[in-house]
């Protein structure tokens, strides 16, 4: 017997719908085995997790708070992947956005101007962080997967240098940046919670992106250059311009994740401002099959896992890094499942058998 992958003529719609469900289920099974091997009942553990993530009003709102940056970094990855710009640099672009927002937030400005200025600065700096590797790929054919990934470290350690040097908090002496001014703190949108306006901004961005990619000439150009840059060039699209603009937007969205963490959660830049939101964004985008609307759902799923894992760890003693396992396994399972939307498995008798027949 031999197993072969055969391409499907048309992408299977049902498989497309099933893929993320199977991926999530697979992630649950694998992590369940891990939990059981630690001597804890997996059902119970997952129960704790779900309760901690969505079990109460405050838990749910805390989850949404975590979902906010995930939507942004998910959109960042989705946008880039659509034009086949392999932007793994959401993490670094997030940090750039955070630093820009913290800088603006500590200046003395009219009260109304903090929010738009922080957003604009974070978006721009994050965008530039993606524009550089995109430009390098266009001009010098530098591998974008490697350059965006490596830039994450450059940016992180650059930020650490800043935090332990010029930006060191003069009052506490910690390696944290100074707090932003009160007026720069993002408005809360739900009473008795920390959920801030950034969540609406994230959902709004997803909707706008969906409209852009389906309803505008720019979206059409993006799709064309992502699927067949040569034909796009022949049809008169300026391929490099669209590529660079999309890269800028992609990085900008990751930057907004950083802006929201500074403006709505931490109010300063700390070394642990992102527990890997940038990387989780890759999972968010893949689970959502790069669809902006579905990114909200997959961000919710990963956000819930991240909040739930903390609480589960406190109650059962299982390390919270289990959240990373769930993330990793669901990404792998999704990638595998996506293969089956385009290919089908064929079991085939071996060559010898065929000849014998």
């Amino acid at each position: 017997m031999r197993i072969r992958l055969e391409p499907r003529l048309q992408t299977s719609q049902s498989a497309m719908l099933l893929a993320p469900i199977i991926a999530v289920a697979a992630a649950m099974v694998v992590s369940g085995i891990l939990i059981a091997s630690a001597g804890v009942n997996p059902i119970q553990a997952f129960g704790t997790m779900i309760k901690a993530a969505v079990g109460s009003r405050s838990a749910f709102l805390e989850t949404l708070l975590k979902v906010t940056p995930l939507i942004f970094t998910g959109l960042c990855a989705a946008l880039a992947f659509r034009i086949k710009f392999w932007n793994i640099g959401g993490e670094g672009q997030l940090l750039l956005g955070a630093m820009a927002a913290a800088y603006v937030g500590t200046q003395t400005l009219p009260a109304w101007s903090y929010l738009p200025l922080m957003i604009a600065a974070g978006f721009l700096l994050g965008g530039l962080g993606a524009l550089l590797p995109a430009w390098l790929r266009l001009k010098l054919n530098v591998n974008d997967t490697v350059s965006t990934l490596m830039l994450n470290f450059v940016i992180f350690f650059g930020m650490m240098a800043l935090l332990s040097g010029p930006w060191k908090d003069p009052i506490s002496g910690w390696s944290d940046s100074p707090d932003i001014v009160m007026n720069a703190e993002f408005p809360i949108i739900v009473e008795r919670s920390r959920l801030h306006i950034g969540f609406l901004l994230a959902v709004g961005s997803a909707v706008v992106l969906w409209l852009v990619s389906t309803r505008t000439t720019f979206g059409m150009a993006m799709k064309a250059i992502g699927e067949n840059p040569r034909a796009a060039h022949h049809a008169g699209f300026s391929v490099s311009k669209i590529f660079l603009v999309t890269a800028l937007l992609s990085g900008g969205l990751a930057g907004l994740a950083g802006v929201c963490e500074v403006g709505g959660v931490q109010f300063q830049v700390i070394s642990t401002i992102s527990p890997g939101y940038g990387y989780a964004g890759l999972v968010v985008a893949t689970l959502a099959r790069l669809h902006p609307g579905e990114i909200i759902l997959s961000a919710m799923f990963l956000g819930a896992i991240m909040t739930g894992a903390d609480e589960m760890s406190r109650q059962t003693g299982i390390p919270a890094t289990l959240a990373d396992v769930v993330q990793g396994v669901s990404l792998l399972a999704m990638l595998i499942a996506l293969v089956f939307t385009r290919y089908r498995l064929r079991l085939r008798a071996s060559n010898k058998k065929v000849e014998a027949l």
Partner: protein
Amino acid sequence: MLEMTAISKRFGDALVNDDVDFNIKPGEIVALLGENGAGKSTLMNVLFGLYRADSGEIRLDGTRLSIRSPVDALGHGIGMVHQHSHVVRRHTVMENLLVGRPGGRWQLADASIRQRLLEIQDEFGLWLDPDVQVSGLSIGEIQRLEILRALIDEVRILILDEPTSVLTPQQVEGLFAAMRAMANRGVGIVMISHKLDEVRALSDRVVIMRRGKVVAELDNDKTLTNAQLSNLMCGRAVEPVRKSPAASPGKTLLALHSQRRGSVTLRANQIVCLAGISGNGQVEITEQMSGVAPVSDGHLEIDGQIVEEPTPKRIRSLGVAYIPEDRQGAGMVGAMTLEQNIVMSRSDSWPFSKWGWLRRKVIRDFASQKIAEYDIRPPRSDLRASLYSGGNQQKCLLARELSVSPRVVVIAYPTRGLDVQASDFVYRKLIELRDNGAAILVVSDDLDEVFTLADRVAVICAGRLTLDCPADETTPEDVGLAMMGSVAQSAASKEGTT
């Protein structure tokens, strides 16, 4: 004697070998002639086991052969040397000769091959140092390596696919001497070629294919002429040629000047057909005219103005429509819907969009109208373009490019993959555009098509324009000869590269 009988092979919709009979005797050199796409290579690939025929059979000395792969073919003594070499450049000659050859259980058959190489040198006068690295060999020597590889297997039938296309005249002489030596030793040789002089000089028999069928088989009794052969290859028009009504050419709309190549001038009310065997520089001309590629050693003029740094968008805005040769690669975006492909090149302008927003209703209505007009099947605007057949994709491209009433049309192989009816439609459309004042360049290797459409015929060979004259001052024979590089008597005298 090897016989192929009633071989048929289909690729998708296209019947590339249609009930073909072919045979070759020991010691015979057979030339297989035909235009591009006539089915010669396919037939030989079937014989060598690279393709499997849909029907028909192959017999060697009366025994039916089942050839499923090149290994089977070699096992029956059938070898093939391809147009593009298949050697490992970083290995030595010896290592290349050893590839795929069973040795003993633990060692390779090194010594026996050295012995055999010496024998071959005695027999055929072909020699290569087995310890030289292939990357240091000339193209002619690499070809010799491939022939050696076949001879080591003691082939009885050797297929050479356009063996001289990459060789210098001196190398050609060496190859021919070796081929004669092989034939004298009883090897049957099939030679696929476009070069008529060589075919006449070397072959014992000429088999001519056209559109998947064998149309003629001639013994080479040294009375054959190039004109006779090219006539048979390109064929007289099967349907009566619809001579397009003469229109007096208007002013020059587009001119592409090049030092090395010569100039192409497109004038209003005129169809220029650029004939040539594909791969001789036609693509460069169309890509430079459409702004896809930069003009390296000359310049592009539109309406008498030099276009600085042409881009596809800019050229298009000057009224030039362009349909590239490579439909899937350069024309369509397969993952996008048909309607998106139909409006793609104009999606950023009225009426298809407003302030960057697509007007989806307008696009859909426009696409539906074009789908009906160009008879695109299936008549749906929302399916992915990659699901359509090549002919329908071509129609989609035509709909996209020709619906703007362009002033200049640059179109490569306009009817490739289209059936007779669709081809007729395209011809009528192009003639209609010309009558409305458009300047048109048609790249083609189909002489029927050239003489159906052309007001003026240009020929490109080896990157140079070798003929340029009004269509009624030349003949398919002359053009066919010029395409194959023999700038013969009459053609040369009608020289007219502006």
